[in-house]
């Protein structure tokens, strides 16, 4: 049986599934329910400085987009950091940690960007017995306008500075949570590392407007007819998160920096993908907010079953396994040639492959053959783009079949070579020609 036990920065949890800093982790009541349900850890919802807490809007805080049958695909929120008094949160954190010593309990913090503010709060958090802190440099709404959250996360120098203050002021491991609302995620990650952070976590939410009400012309969620950009999360953002995680994992400057992966983790499979791209743990919010805490049971069982099936004994056998396969476009093998092939027995004749290829791509799939509705790949035209696979409603009906070395690519008339060859050496590349001179 695969061992799911996680050791992230020395913080142990029975599994790598943590609840992200968010509404589900705002109170002792919720967190206890989460631990009872089996979550390996939680990142307590972001604490602010002592004094009067922030206030939230009193209208809707969330907006969403849905697939058919209202399957929630993306969620957006304009909720701020905790709006409960600091001392209440600290008291509850301490009580929960005492009762669940085997679970990870990280505390998310966001205070004004000055050293005194950070130094004031860190001892208070440390006193709770929490396992670590996460610096919230990510929230794109509300707090950012007050110079916190993503306003810090968008300036690498600030990240480095605050991370350093924290490392100096506390013995607790420091995780820096990064915003995706930035051009190149490697810069803030590098800054966090330079500042001494023990790990990064990402992604925080993506700045977003989920929809516009076409009766009132108000953005959603609408507060008395007005809306504000919120933070987007859920299944829709996972591809963005995977890429950003991978960029950090394979960047020579940050390679090896522990990562806690966040962004649309909904199933065990999503989690396994984040682990494979270098994450030591994953953090979940939207899935729990959609289905309740019980979803973790599926994640635990699914990850365990997959690891057993593949013979991965523990998380370390999985973490980072895909990182080496993420490369720059210029290093992709141009001698790898694949052609779409349609399984005629599986084909249900919807014609989507044909019309997608015919209208928008390469005119490489038939519609009628000998007066009969028939969809077949014209290899002379097929560039192997995979669009037909992506639009086909039948799983495994269309597959991409690589040509073997020695075979002739009917499109180009050239024999497929066995050598690896990429753009850097391609004759059409002006840079390559220059190098050859």
């Amino acid at each position, binding site marked *: 049986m695969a061992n799911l036990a996680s050791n992230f920065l020395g913080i142990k949890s029975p599994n790598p599934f943590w609840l992200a800093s968010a509404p589900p982790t705002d109170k002792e009541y919720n967190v206890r329910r989460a631990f009872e349900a089996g979550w390996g850890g939680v990142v307590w919802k972001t604490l602010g400085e002592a004094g009067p807490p922030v206030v939230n809007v009193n209208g809707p805080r969330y907006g969403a987009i849905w*697939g*058919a*049958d*209202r399957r929630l695909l993306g969620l957006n929120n304009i909720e701020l950091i905790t709006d409960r008094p600091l001392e209440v949160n600290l008291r509850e954190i301490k009580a929960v940690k005492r009762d669940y010593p085997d679970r990870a309990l990280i505390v998310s913090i966001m205070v004004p960007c000055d050293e005194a503010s950070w130094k004031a709060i860190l001892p208070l958090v440390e006193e709770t017995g929490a396992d670590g802190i996460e610096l919230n440099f990510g929230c794109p709404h509300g707090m950012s306008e007050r110079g916190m959250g993503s306003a810090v996360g968008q300036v690498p120098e600030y990240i480095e500075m605050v991370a350093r203050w924290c490392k100096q002021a506390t013995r607790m491991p420091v995780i820096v949570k990064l915003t995706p609302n930035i051009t190149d995620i490697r810069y803030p990650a590098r800054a966090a590392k330079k500042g001494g952070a023990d790990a990064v976590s990402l992604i925080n939410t993506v700045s977003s407007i989920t929809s516009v009400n076409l009766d009132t012309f108000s953005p959603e969620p609408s507060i008395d007819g007005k809306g504000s950009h919120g933070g987007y999360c859920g299944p829709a953002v996972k591809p963005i998160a995977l890429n950003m995680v991978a960029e950090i994992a394979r960047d020579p400057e940050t390679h090896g920096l522990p990562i806690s992966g966040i962004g649309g983790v909904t199933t065990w499979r999503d989690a396994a993908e984040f682990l494979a791209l270098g994450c030591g743990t994953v953090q979940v919010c939207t899935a729990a907010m959609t289905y309740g805490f019980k979803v973790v049971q599926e994640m635990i069982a699914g990850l365990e079953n997959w690891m057993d099936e593949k013979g991965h004994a523990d998380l370390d056998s999985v973490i980072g396994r895909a990182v080496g396969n993420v490369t720059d476009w210029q290093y992709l093998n141009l001698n790898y040639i694949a052609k779409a092939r349609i399984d005629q027995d599986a084909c*249900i*004749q*919807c*014609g*989507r492959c*044909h*019309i997608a290829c015919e209208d928008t791509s390469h005119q490489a799939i038939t*519609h009628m053959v000998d007066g009969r*509705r028939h969809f077949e790949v014209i290899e002379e035209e097929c560039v192997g783009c995979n669009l037909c696979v992506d639009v086909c*409603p*039948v799983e495994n009906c269309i597959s991409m079949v690589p040509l073997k070395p020695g075979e002739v690519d009917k499109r180009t008339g050239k024999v497929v070579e066995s050598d690896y060859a990429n753009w850097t050496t391609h004759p059409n590349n002006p840079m390559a020609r220059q190098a050859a001179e």
Partner: protein
Amino acid sequence: MAGNSLKEGIAAGRLEPDDYARNFSDLHPPLDAHEARVEADRCYFCHDAPCMNACPTSIDIPLFIRQIQTGNPLGSAKTIFDQNILGGMCARVCPTETLCEEVCVREVAEGKPVRIGELQRYATDTAMAQNKQCYRRAPATGKTIAVVGAGPAGLACAHRLAMKGHDVEVFEARAKSGGLNEYGIAAYKATDRFAQAEVDYVTAIGGIAIHNGKTLGEDIHLGDLLGQFDAVFLGMGLAGVNALGAGDADAEGSDDAVDWIAGLRQAGDLSTVPVGRRVVVIGGGMTAIDAAVQARALGADEVTVAYRGPQSRMKASPFEQELAQTKGVALQFEMQPKRVIAEGGKVVAVEFERRGESVTVACDQVFKAIGQSFAPGSLNGSSPSITLDGGRIAVDGEGRTSLASVWAGGDCTNSGDDLTVTAVAQGRDAAESIHRALTA
């Protein structure tokens, strides 16, 4: 059950009042907005969609379903009405299982087609509930056209002609318009007086005057119409009922299914419609099934559909057959009717020959549903004769008869399959042909 549910002979009021409402309620309850969007999402928006090719009126089904999916049911309704102004009734009565839904790729893939008929009903009902008219009439052409018959073919023809700016006068033999939609099909397929609502919706475009109680050959004559109108469209359906043959008894309880159904459809109170305790329906088409299922719904204890051929040749679709069986109707095949047996002026049994053996089925009432025929007497020599083919009016691909200025469509012609949707297509196409001829 009421006390006379098992009363011998033919009797009305076999059931409790609530039973009638339940038995004659919508066969498929309408989809609500969410159900419609979920079902619409199942559509793959096929290229050169098989469903569309299978539709006699060529409705752009993928487009109208996508419009439902995107929350635009009125746009969806227009897509439907563009091809089929009686899309509301067709959504209810089309044998979709042998047309669009039979070839749906989801049927091929998983045996569960997109519920195209129910989606079509959702869109058209939405438009009709809001009385949303999708069309305005073109400027008046000054041309007038006579349409004979206010059934599906005649209404479709009249609507399209009115759209083009022509004035249309419709002559209908019956007291109400709608044709078989009003008098023929099973009540549970068109509840809440839908046929009349649809007639009102279709004629609301304007330029269509309907004259009821005008029978061709009796009250009006083709020769006169040709003198008064720029063109004539004949869509009077089939007035004749095929006879059983020599063995038919002129006895109480021996009824034509179409007449009995028409009476049922017009009954204000279903508990007043008499039906036998034991009923035999002779025939194998939709009318036979409609009569049999409605006889059961009225409380008949035993209902048997006796078809002369094998099951494979039965014209009623497998869906209709299964519906009948689910409602407790027994289906019997290879039952060649020999004679209706009467005693004391009342039907007591029907004798069949089955694989060389004589089979007698006892019953109080027998419905004959062995087909209808065109009554050529309506073309009574007031004009040059119109060529018939197979006993029905011969038409070309766009509905022209052998007589200049006369078009025809629907069941009275030789070109269809006696489906509502086909009649609509023919009426529409004839209107286009008439328009071309009158504006050439």
